[in-house]
């Protein structure tokens, strides 16, 4: 029976190939999520007089969630990242699409140089980007702020009204070039025949952008938007680095900062777990919601 042995081997082969990844995936994705959900419905209860008799962990159902959602600072931090996302995501996606279309246009020169220049910041870690921009925001050090003052314009880039947008600038600076690269790659997959056809139909450059390029960019734009939404909700390093130079940033400035401080400053892992679960849920709801919205309107775009 010469065919039997190889067939058996083939049935085992996919298991061997999939198992190592799947085991680590379970360990670093499924297990932490399960553990976070478990922690979030438990709490430490102190027993005895004045709570000195010791402590035990008890089931508290959703009380950590109601604690988190009745904490004004945490709720404000959610509102803050949502506002941030509502502004920064469209701005960055539009900027990236605009730059990609410029790079792809017939009038562009030195495309390789510009693409590289736009892409460079992607290689700069968020914390280091924040340190750099921090120096460019602080009055007395920043050539930008001081230069403006010489022109008679005083700007406070770290104040209560402005610091969120200063952070948005850092995030846009970091990731716009990467998105440009994705979108340019997508534009390059458009077959020349389409352009040929558009030209024969007498389409102007603008009409080609509107009716040929933008519709074909759609899948890449959707993907970019979803990843940007998820990234935005996780905002952490930038406000943490700017905190020492801006009094407007507190320890619950973003949901992630809040969860981090609950866990490591206040030792309240259960509340932190509830906040982490809420964050993951929000990311899921928003990204799926966006995808559904897009698919519903799919036909007419």
């Amino acid at each position, binding site marked *: 029976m010469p065919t039997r042995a190889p067939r058996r081997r083939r049935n085992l082969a996919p298991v061997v190939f999939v198992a190592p990844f799947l085991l680590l*995936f379970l360990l670093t994705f499924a297990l932490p999520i399960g553990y*976070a959900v478990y922690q979030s419905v438990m709490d430490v209860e102190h027993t005895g007089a004045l709570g000195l008799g010791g402590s035990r962990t008890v089931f508290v159902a959703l009380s950590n969630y109601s604690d988190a959602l009745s904490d004004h600072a945490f709720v404000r931090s959610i509102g803050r990242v949502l506002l941030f996302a509502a502004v920064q995501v469209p701005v960055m996606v539009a900027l990236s699409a605009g730059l990609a279309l410029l790079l*792809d246009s017939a*009038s562009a*020169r030195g495309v390789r140089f510009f693409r590289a220049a736009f892409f460079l910041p992607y290689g700069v*870690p968020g914390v280091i980007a924040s340190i750099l921009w921090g*120096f460019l925001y602080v009055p007395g050090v920043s050539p930008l702020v001081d230069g403006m003052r010489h022109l008679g314009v005083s700007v406070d880039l770290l104040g209560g009204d402005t610091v969120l947008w200063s952070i948005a600038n850092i995030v846009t600076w970091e990731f716009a070039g990467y998105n440009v690269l994705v979108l340019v790659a*997508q534009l390059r997959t458009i077959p020349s025949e389409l352009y040929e056809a558009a*030209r024969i139909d007498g389409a102007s450059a603008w009409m080609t952008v509107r009716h040929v390029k933008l519709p074909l960019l759609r899948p890449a734009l959707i993907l970019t938007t979803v990843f940007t939404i998820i990234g935005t909700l996780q905002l952490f390093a930038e406000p943490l680095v700017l905190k020492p130079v801006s009094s407007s940033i507190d320890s619950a400035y973003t949901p992630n900062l809040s969860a981090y401080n609950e866990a490591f400053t206040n030792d309240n892992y259960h509340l932190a777990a509830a906040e982490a679960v809420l964050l993951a849920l929000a990311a899921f709801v928003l990204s799926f919601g966006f995808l559904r919205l897009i698919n519903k309107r799919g036909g007419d775009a």
Partner: protein
Amino acid sequence: MSLQTPARTVPQRGETPASDDGTTPRGGITGVTTRSRILVTGMLVAAAGYFLLPVYWLVVASTKSTGDLFGSFGLWFSHPRFLSNLHQVVTYDHAIYLRWAANSILYAGVGAGVATLLAAMCGYALAKFSFAGRDTIFNVVLGGVLIPATALALPMYLLFSEAGLANTYWAVLLPSFVSPFGVYLCRIYAAASIPDELLEAARIDGAGEIRIFTVVALRIMTPALVTIFLFQFVGIWNNYFLPLVMLSDSKLYPITLGLTSWQSFADRQPQLYQMTVGGAFVSVVPLMIAMVALQRFWRSGLTEGSVKG
């Protein structure tokens, strides 16, 4: 939209250097006027200025003394002393900076290497074998792409502390080995580029499955693997939250964590301002050079990932 053959990942029409410089207009509708050329170039120059400004500031700042960092115009040189700054950065505190750099290279290099191999194995199996639970596995992994990594880090820290893994190299390495995006890309790429007939032929020749994978599949999937490696490398290199949560021993820090620890002490020890800047410069430059040099590979796998978007 159908997927194309791997041929498109080699530089294709419109990606050769000549046309990259715009000599062969893409999307070239007739009549590129001088005015539109000036307009487009002007906007591109303005954008490049924006993206390069902080980098330029960093180059200038890395040559300054602590005093000049705060006392001189930020966008021009003043008493350049780059080498002595560099010396200070790498020798301070028993050369801890070099240790951080080595750690970053270890985390990102080993992490990305293992992640790429595991993703290749899994993606290949999902694309080329039919077995029970295949679609479930793929969908679950795909869902993993949408989970914020920082929401995972806190519970993972608690789990790892109980297992005695927190504050070790493994605490950063193990999560770095997992790239759901890599599995996604590998599955799509393998499905589109590895012909079933080739695998059948190898089987008829008596090759084992592992040998077929290493000799045939890995070779064909190389462009996608390079892309995954680069993504994962930069992702781990830039990661801050995970090592921040996991590590307390500064000897295990990657550069990102090390530099912020310097920065947080700087109000007491002003020389650390200059060293934070110098350390940032040293860490950023090699990575930026590598990124620009490897640009071609970034592009190659990207469109595959978005086709199904």
